[in-house]
């Protein structure tokens, strides 16, 4: 397990390399360390409009580096409650601290049953290992 592919325990993961953390009624979403490493220096994040509705594994936002752009998918269906506006001036937060200050959005009004469709850290690490 290389350092770059670290995936902390206690989070949910998607195969598209998003992570999700349940915090009470909210679900915080971000990009995994693997994803930020693949993208390289992130230059821009197109965040969704607050109050917009998203569907599980539907396109939620776009992150851009100099040479690529990647769609970010919503791990759960729900409503965008808050977006990380700090990313507007400092998209590099995703590269620096993807599981912390580099979070993307907070979802509310989601269906916990959909958590079943996500991976835990161990399963995600396995996916990473298979990908090699």
């Amino acid at each position, binding site marked *: 397990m290389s350092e770059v592919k670290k995936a902390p325990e206690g989070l949910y993961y998607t195969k598209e390399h998003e992570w999700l953390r349940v915090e009470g009624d909210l679900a915080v979403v971000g990009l995994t360390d693997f994803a930020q490493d693949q993208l390289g*220096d992130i*230059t*821009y994040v197109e965040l969704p409009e607050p109050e917009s509705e998203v569907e599980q594994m539907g396109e939620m936002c776009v992150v*851009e*580096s*100099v*040479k690529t752009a990647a769609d970010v998918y919503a791990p759960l269906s729900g409503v965008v409650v808050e977006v990380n506006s700090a990313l507007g001036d400092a998209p*590099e937060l995703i590269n620096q601290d993807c599981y912390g200050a580099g979070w993307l959005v907070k979802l509310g009004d989601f269906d916990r049953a959909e958590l079943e469709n996500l991976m835990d850290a161990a399963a995600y690490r396995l996916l990473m290992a298979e990908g090699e």
Partner: protein
Amino acid sequence: MKTIFEKSRPGRRAASLPCSRVDERFCQLSQLPPELRREKPAELPEVAEIDLVRHYTLLSRMNFGVDVGTYPLGSCTMKYNPKFTEWAARLPGFAGLHPLLPQLRRGGLLAQGALRVVYELEQLLKQITGMDAFTMQPLAGAHGELTGIMLMAAYHKDKGNQKSIVLVPDSAHGTNPASAAIAGYQVVTVPSKDGVMDPVAFKEKLNDEVAGVMMTNPNTLGLFNPHIAEITEAAHRADAIMYYDGANLNAIMGYAKPADLGFDIVHLNLHKTFGTPHGGGGPGAGPVGVVEKLMDYLPISRVEMRADGTLFLNYDHPNSIGYVAPFYGNFGVCLKAFAYILALGGEGLKEVSEDAVLAANYLRVKLGDKWEVAFNRPCMHEVVFSAEDKAADYGVSALDVAKALIDEGFHPPTVYFPLVVKESLMIEPTETEALENLDAFIAAMGRIADKAAGDPEALHAAPITTPVGRLDEVAAARHPVLKEPEDQGA
């Protein structure tokens, strides 16, 4: 270098305007109501002609064109552009001609020369491609693609077909999927096998929903797809339209025609195949040709001949998709391509393809000692190498190779495209580079390969001979500065 705005000095000017000589009461500006006027003049530069001429001359010296040296930028066909075609485009009878003139009653008689250029170019392009009719309207290659997809849509609509998908191989130019998507289609990518679109995978994706298939042949790897007949026949059975991206037509002139290969629509990049200058990114021209079943849908107007031999603009094509450009295309570019084709003639064009293919294969073989060819078999007009081994062994990427070539005095090949080859270097030498230029390029690539093994750091530092080194594109994208601030040169 300072910008033209920074060189501005209050009160300086270059403008030389005629005197009005009409009565002062006609001066309208002071009578213009304030709510219709801008508050203050635009802060354009205030410079003398000599300041401006030196500024842009100095800038030109910070640029590299085919006139300066070898420019093997894959897929872009950077061949030499003969100068007499420029002279032709500047003839006052062409350059000064207002496009609305032939739309006036009897005005067409005063534009017969220009209409003849359009008409005769159409006949030549029909012969070169085997198509039944052409429109000169599309203003660039990608614009031709969009026009072609619109023609495809009009055809299916007319036939009552419900089709929503366009198939595109994974090696396609980015413009192909973008054009199809912008015209309202869903794009489905077909994987390649052994460098070309796989007919088996193609047939798996082909169904009644497929409106058309966009292909380049030879493709962006410089490989001719030998399964092309199988692909076009299957597509036609599903009533899908075969679209030929003519970006690489320069490889097969005289040997094969898109219509004979089974294609229904073709766009040509006149600026590539027929040697008109690329202008630092444009203008180009992207005429579109079609087989008979699509002729009714071509944009209007079309240049047609009357019984007496005179030419006129015919707008009376009720099934036409309409206008894709205001007039008759990038006429100036079409005129240069026309002059180019006239000069070369049939045999000359065939030689263009032969020499382009020969040069690419020469590089394939000669560079093969030190560089890994993506698909090592005879190629057409271009050849793709991969720097993947250099990246793995020495940490030297395709980008490093490109930058090192700049220091060697060459324009680099296309890098990181096509996407199907990692660390790709896509090289298109074109037919106009003499053997000694190809050998010089081979020698430079050899030195770079040696340096990759011996002194990779030197390659990371390249280029060192240019006015600026590698620019921090990340910072430029994070905090875009896209214009001179207003207080500068105000």
